[in-house]
């Protein structure tokens, strides 16, 4: 990796990068509300399963497939992937949240990294999944597929940890310790994703999906999803 690439990736994965992801808990707030996630231990357990399910089979695999389709210059494939990723969100808030994050990420990356490969999809579909934007940036700065996917996984986990620090709440040190703890899980997930069949895309974590649906009706909410 070149110095330039490293700096690009550091900027993209910064928890202050204004994609809007910090406003979304993707269902975790429901568990916090029900006190099933209430401290570092319970959050850690949930986070590991989150990495092994949602992040591996949906976000991570989507990022890999998008990267491959960008390599092959398959706009049709990207369109189909984008459509599939939104169809997979059964919870409305998660669908809307993903759409908002995708749009902000796309606008930012269009300016910063001059990513313009996705304009056609955004214009016809009005929405773009963040995993696809991330893959496009990875391609643009010529980061490898694995590095792009791993950076995406880390970015997603980092947002979840920051949200847990605010939402549960946890200490900042606990949050940083968690980010170290998840490292082997993220590396393992990156390897699994490399070998997954595209047919495995989008397998849901059933309980999490229910939590995402229930979030709409929580009486007190810190997050938009």
């Amino acid at each position: 990796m070149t110095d330039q690439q490293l700096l690009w990736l550091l900027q993209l994965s910064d928890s202050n990068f204004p994609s809007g992801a910090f406003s979304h808990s993707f269902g975790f707030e429901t568990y916090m509300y029900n006190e099933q996630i209430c401290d570092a231990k319970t959050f850690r357990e949930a986070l590991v399963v989150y990495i092994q399910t949602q992040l591996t089979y949906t976000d991570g695999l989507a990022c890999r497939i998008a990267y491959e389709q960008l390599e092959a210059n398959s706009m049709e494939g990207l369109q189909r992937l984008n459509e599939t990723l939104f169809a997979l969100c059964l919870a409305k808030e998660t669908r809307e949240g993903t759409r908002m994050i995708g749009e902000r990420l796309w606008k930012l990356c269009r300016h910063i990294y001059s990513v313009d490969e996705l304009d056609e999809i955004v214009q016809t579909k009005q929405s773009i999944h963040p995993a696809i934007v991330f893959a496009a940036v990875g391609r643009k700065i010529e980061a490898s597929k694995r590095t792009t996917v791993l950076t995406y996984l880390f970015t997603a986990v980092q947002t979840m940890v920051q949200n847990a620090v605010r939402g549960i709440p946890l200490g900042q040190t606990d949050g940083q310790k968690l980010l170290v703890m998840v490292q082997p899980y993220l590396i393992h997930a990156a390897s699994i994703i490399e070998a997954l069949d595209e047919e495995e895309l989008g397998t849901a974590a059933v309980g999490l999906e229910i939590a995402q649906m229930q979030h709409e009706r929580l009486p007190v909410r810190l997050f938009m999803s």
Partner: protein
Amino acid sequence: MSWTGRLQCTASFRNGRTVILDSYNEGALKLMRPVYLDPAHPTLYLVHVGGGYVDGDRYEINMKLEPHARLMMTTQAATKVYKTPHAPVWQYTQFSLGDESVLEYFPDPLIAYEQARFIQETVVYITNRSTFMYGEIITPGWAESGQLFRYDWIRSKLKVYQDEVLVLFDHLYLDSRQHLTSMLQLGGYTHVGSFVALSPFITKEVLEQFNQFMEEMPQEVRCGFSAAAVPGFSVRILAYETSVIEAIFQRVQQFIRQQCGEKAPVCWRKY
């Protein structure tokens, strides 16, 4: 390709009632003679003539509803998947719904026994003027050891295309070897119920009524529901027994039927 069971038919709307045409079957899948619980629209009972699904079985169901056709479909008994030492059981189902047609599909539960592997893919084509209702229940079968979740895995995909666009994709994968008891997955529950209803009748106002309707829920379940990207919604339920999920499904089905102008409650008359 050889099939363990195959079934196809077309439902057509003629002179004010729905009739079944071109019914064809081979192997272990059969349709019973249509029953007219409603004088104008048939109810179809799907029958598996063997005792259950075994190693390497392959099934295909293909049903077409012409414009204005309306039918209900269920199974005669639970779908049992036994152990699959060599190849998983595979079932592919396709429904095509014409304008203003209505399909209500509520199969009996899927019971996966020890060492069962099962893949099902259900693909549905709807238009923005057709109504599709589907409820599915997945349960773990009894195992000699008394332990739950002795099945290996179940993969269930439901893809709904509206006018060629994929609008809903429900992809369930339950793998007994992978954190199935985590609260992000079944969280101690054993039975999974999934309900999808897509219909132009499910307007914003109907959704609001539905929110209130769903407030009363039995204590012993975990249940979520949310609006779909097109008019309609999906419901997901975790429970300890089939009957609780079936009762919720029936209430939801009844709610939607009322929105569609059908007042009569459904009685499948199975037992």
